[in-house]
């Protein structure tokens, strides 16, 4: 019996306290005068961002601009060997053609063309790779390693966007633009490991994977891992993962 009374009393008292709290709160002014540390700014909701076809087209433009900026950089042009330099000049022309092909597509879909390199991809790995090549002991090889991955990333970007694009005709247009960067990536692999022996995957005498022109049967969407730059005191070099754009690097 005592227990029942206690529980009821507790609920009753609790309810009374809550009601009193509500009444007191309602009576109080907005600026109560009670001391408080700092000012809490009004929360502003983030704008909604939809991954539409035009967003993908604009991002593709930014990735092509990234390739143009990276390939045309003073570091790459000065550190590349003669063969590498000739290849890069050819590749730059192909990326300009892709940019020119993308611009009308962006306009048709009601977007505004992107004329600057993809900021996050530039910050995340292109700037780092360029700096490492600048101080490398084997810069001409490192340039080719970087260009091989960069061209692969550009091609993989279009491939990745097929899954996100809603309009079939646009998927087709994007993949037509993926062909040349993919060819250029494979051609650069041939410059690193030439001839038909370089086409097939293989390993060196230490069991490490060699660059292969055809490393897989289907186009991968995984990151391109490259190891470039100066050898440090431990005998190691810097590894960088070069990836296709993700949700936080799209041009909304």
């Amino acid at each position, binding site marked *: 019996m005592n227990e029942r009374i206690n529980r009821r009393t507790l609920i009753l008292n609790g309810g009374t306290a809550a009601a009193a709290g509500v009444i007191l709160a309602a009576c109080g002014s907005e600026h109560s005068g009670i001391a408080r540390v700092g000012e809490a700014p009004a929360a502003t909701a983030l704008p909604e961002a*939809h991954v539409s076809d035009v967003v993908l087209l604009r991002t593709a433009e930014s990735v092509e601009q990234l390739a143009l900026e990276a390939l045309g950089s003073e570091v790459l042009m000065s550190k590349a060997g003669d063969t590498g330099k000739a290849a890069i000049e*050819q590749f730059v022309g192909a990326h300009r053609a892709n940019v020119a092909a993308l611009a009308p597509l962006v306009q048709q879909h009601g977007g505004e063309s992107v004329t600057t390199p993809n900021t996050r991809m530039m910050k995340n790995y292109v700037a780092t790779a360029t700096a490492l090549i600048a101080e490398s002991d084997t810069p001409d090889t490192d340039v080719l390693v970087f260009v091989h991955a960069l061209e692969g990333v550009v091609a993989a970007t279009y*491939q990745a966007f097929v*899954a996100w694009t809603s309009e079939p005709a646009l*998927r087709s247009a994007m*993949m037509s633009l993926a062909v040349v960067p993919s060819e250029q990536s494979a*051609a650069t692999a041939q410059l690193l490991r030439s001839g038909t022996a370089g086409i097939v995957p293989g390993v060196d005498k230490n069991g490490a994977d060699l660059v292969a*022109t*055809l490393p897989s049967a*289907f186009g991968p969407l995984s990151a391109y891992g490259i190891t470039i730059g100066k050898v440090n005191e431990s005998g190691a070099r810097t590894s960088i993962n070069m990836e296709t754009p993700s949700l936080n690097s799209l041009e909304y």
Partner: protein
Amino acid sequence: MDETTADNSTARTRRGLIGSLVAAGAAVAVASRASAAGDGTSPTTTAPPKRDEADTATVNALIAREQDMVATYEQAVGGAGGDDRAALELMHAHHIAYVQALAALLGPDSDVSAGQALALQGGTYAQAAQELAAHERATINRHVEALASIRGTDAANLVASIITVEARHVAALLVSATGTVQSLTAAGQN
């Protein structure tokens, strides 16, 4: 009222309260969804289908083309030796994989009949590589054109992943045969 009855009464009340809350929550959720769907401001996008039966004929046409490439590489491999043969065998294996992957996509609707070898006259690896590269480019073009009508995202993703590697085939053949990257444009790069 004995203690047992009182406890039962309390339990019923508590259960009833929880039940009412759950019901109210569900009602709010349903009302909120209904409101969001009908307010005219929310996006009304429809995701593309993963698979579409209308793609069957298109994908079967791509299988037929890949079967032709398999037959063509079989012929090319027969006339090659050493590293050249190993490289051609790898590309041959890739095309077999494309046939299998595309057929797997369609299941029982797939039409996997034997292909016909495309024109291949080259006696040396360099000559054969030029011809094979031209066939690869023609195959890529067919895949790219097919993408414009393929509605299912599974098929579109698969075809896209084939296109990027067939483009690598082109470069592998041309640059290994000529030793120069410029061969890509000389052979009529897109």
